[in-house]
C-alpha cells in the first residue's frame, strides 16, 4: 500500500509538492483514526443506552411514544 502523503502548495512560486508522511506523521494519522473509531463506538453505545432507557420508561408508564409526545406537547 502506498504511503499517505501531504500536499504543499507554494502560493509565491506556484510549486506544488506531494510529500510522503514521516513515520511520526503516519503514527499521528493512525492514532486519529483509532480515536475516531473509539468516538464512533462510544456515540453508538450512548445512543443505544438512551433508546433502551426510553423504551424501559415507556413500558413502566404503560404508554406509547406517541402518547408521551402528546403529554409533553
Amino acid at each position, binding site marked *: 500500500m*502506498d504511503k*499517505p*502523503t*501531504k*500536499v*504543499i*502548495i*507554494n*502560493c*509565491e*512560486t*506556484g510549486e*506544488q509538492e*506531494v510529500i510522503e*508522511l514521516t513515520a511520526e*506523521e503516519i503514527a499521528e*494519522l493512525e492514532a*486519529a*483514526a483509532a*480515536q*475516531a*473509531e473509539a468516538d*464512533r463506538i462510544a456515540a453508538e453505545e450512548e445512543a443505544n443506552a438512551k433508546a433502551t432507557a426510553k423504551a424501559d420508561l415507556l413500558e413502566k408508564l404503560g404508554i406509547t411514544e406517541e402518547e408521551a409526545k402528546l403529554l409533553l406537547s
Partner: protein
Amino acid sequence: MANTYTLISSNTLSSSAASVTFSSIPSTYTDLVLRISSRSSAGAVQRIMNIEFNADTTTKYSDTLLTGDGSTATSTRESAVTIALIGYMPASTATANTFGNAEIYIPSYNSTSSKPFSSATVSETNATAAYIRNAAALYTGTSGISSLRITPSSGTMDIGSSFYLYGIKNS
C-alpha cells in the same frame, strides 16, 4: 463589498492526501476565501474538517458550530484548542463518489490582532441523512496569516478533492 476576487492557487488531488497546505500566501489582499470540494477515506458517514494557520498548533483557536442532520439541530462550542474545527466532509460510507463542499472566509488576514473567520460546509450524500455544519471561529495569533493547512479529523482526503484559495481586495 468585494470588487476583486483573484485566484491565488488551487490544487485537485491526484493521489489521496492527509493534508493540504497553502504556504507563502501573499499579503497583498485584504481577505481570503478558501473553497473546497472534498471527501475523506475514513470509515464513517462524515469526518470533521479542520484548519490551522501559520503551522501554529498552540491553543489559539476557538469555534462555535451549528450542525443539522435533517432531524436534529445542535450547537457546540470549543475554546482555546489547538486546531479550528470548521465543518464536515463526507467519508467512505456516504454515497459513493459524493463530495462535500465548503467555503471558509477569512477577513483581514494580515491583521496583527485576533482574526475571526467563518465557514459553511455541507456533507453531500444521496442517502437520507445529509449534514450541514457552519462555524464562527477565531484565531488569536498576532501575525498575519501566511500559510493554512486543511486536514480531516481522520483518514485522508480522496483523489478528486479540490482546493481553491482566492484573495479579495477592497472588501
